[in-house]
């Protein structure tokens, strides 16, 4: 067996790589052991008891998302750069997902996560996709205005289910849009 046999015809040529093991200065500074449960519980309590108001930030991300949606709607189909348009909506959605849960709005995180999954799958924007994005936007805004913290209980599950069903209906109508 030769080296060439292991090489796929389509593979980039093997590259030279140098390896370095940098000194572990951090280990030298911190020593051995770990952190106690007590410290980690204190840190977690700090996260859970933080009183920062997420709504102004959330509104800012929602506005950015809406600007993205508006930009998509304003452009004729032939000139729409779908990837950059999806990004204009995807990035604020990602910020909502990331930060909602850090400030007690877990339902915002869950719903935004669904929106991200939807945006990561579609590679073209059409009027039906815009309608779905608007539905997500309206729902998240309602959660922020209603200050629905945590998972939103039964109402939260219902909202989530309605949005997930809308995504399923979209892919049933447009099976060609499902890229993965």
């Amino acid at each position, binding site marked *: 067996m030769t080296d060439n046999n292991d090489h796929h015809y389509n593979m980039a040529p093997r590259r030279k790589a140098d390896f370095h093991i940098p000194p572990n200065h*951090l280990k030298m500074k911190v020593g051995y052991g770990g952190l106690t449960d007590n410290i980690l519980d204190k840190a977690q309590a700090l996260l859970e008891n933080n009183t920062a108001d997420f709504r102004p930030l959330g509104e800012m991300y929602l506005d950015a998302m809406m600007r993205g949606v508006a930009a998509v709607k304003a452009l004729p189909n032939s000139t729409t750069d779908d990837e950059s348009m999806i990004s204009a909506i995807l990035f604020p959605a990602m910020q909502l997902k990331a930060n909602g849960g850090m400030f007690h709005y877990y339902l915002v995180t869950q719903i935004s996560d669904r929106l991200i999954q939807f945006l990561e799958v579609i590679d073209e924007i059409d009027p039906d996709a815009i309608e779905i994005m608007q539905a997500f936007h309206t729902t998240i805004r309602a959660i922020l205005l209603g200050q629905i913290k945590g998972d939103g209980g039964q109402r939260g599950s219902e909202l989530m289910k309605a949005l997930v069903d809308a995504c399923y209906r979209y892919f049933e109508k447009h099976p060609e849009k499902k890229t993965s």
Partner: protein
Amino acid sequence: MEKIYYNNISNFSNFLWGGFLGPRRFVVMSYKFDKVRILVVEDNAPMLDICKSLLLTFGVGEVLSARNGEEGFQIFRKENPDMILADWMMHPTDGISLTRRARNDPASPNPYVPVILMTGFSEKKRVVQARDAGVTEFLVKPFTARDLYKRIAQIIERPRQFVRSEDFFGPDRRRKAVNEYNGPLKRESDGALAIKQKQRMKSASMHLDEIRDKAGLNKGDKFDITDIDFS
């Protein structure tokens, strides 16, 4: 007694030896973060405050902060912290660009600096994008205090070797032990490894053939291993 999160065997053996020496000489060691300096780069002010508070609760001696990647790089140059905790999405310079500069800019005071990238993205393609920029650890938001601690402990206890190739400089992207790695073998030094990998594949294929023979199946027939009677 309080539970300690041990990060490797040697720490655990220290704990046991402490026990053998008798209860009065029982020694439990814990990390001393007081000499550690960490730079947090985050454009969201409440989130920046949370990160700083978490690190200070862990006992970190000094937490530096910056509001975007550009400012972060200037502070990194000036202060040379022990670690960077950066958000991905920031304007004008994001966490990925900051990582690339920390690794490759001639003005970087420490190209080996550990970088933890915080982001809401968890899709594989995003993780790969961050890894290819030279990020050391990936922390998905929202996270818990333990999630952050685990990433820091990983950097301390399992530091990765650095790789320099024509188009990459950063922590070794093959995180798993070599004999578990199943990805493409692109390095010149991979010849022997490729042979081993091929042998494993061949052995697995022979094993599958054996199972099919015993079950009376033809090559290409799909089967559920739980349905096959091996008696």
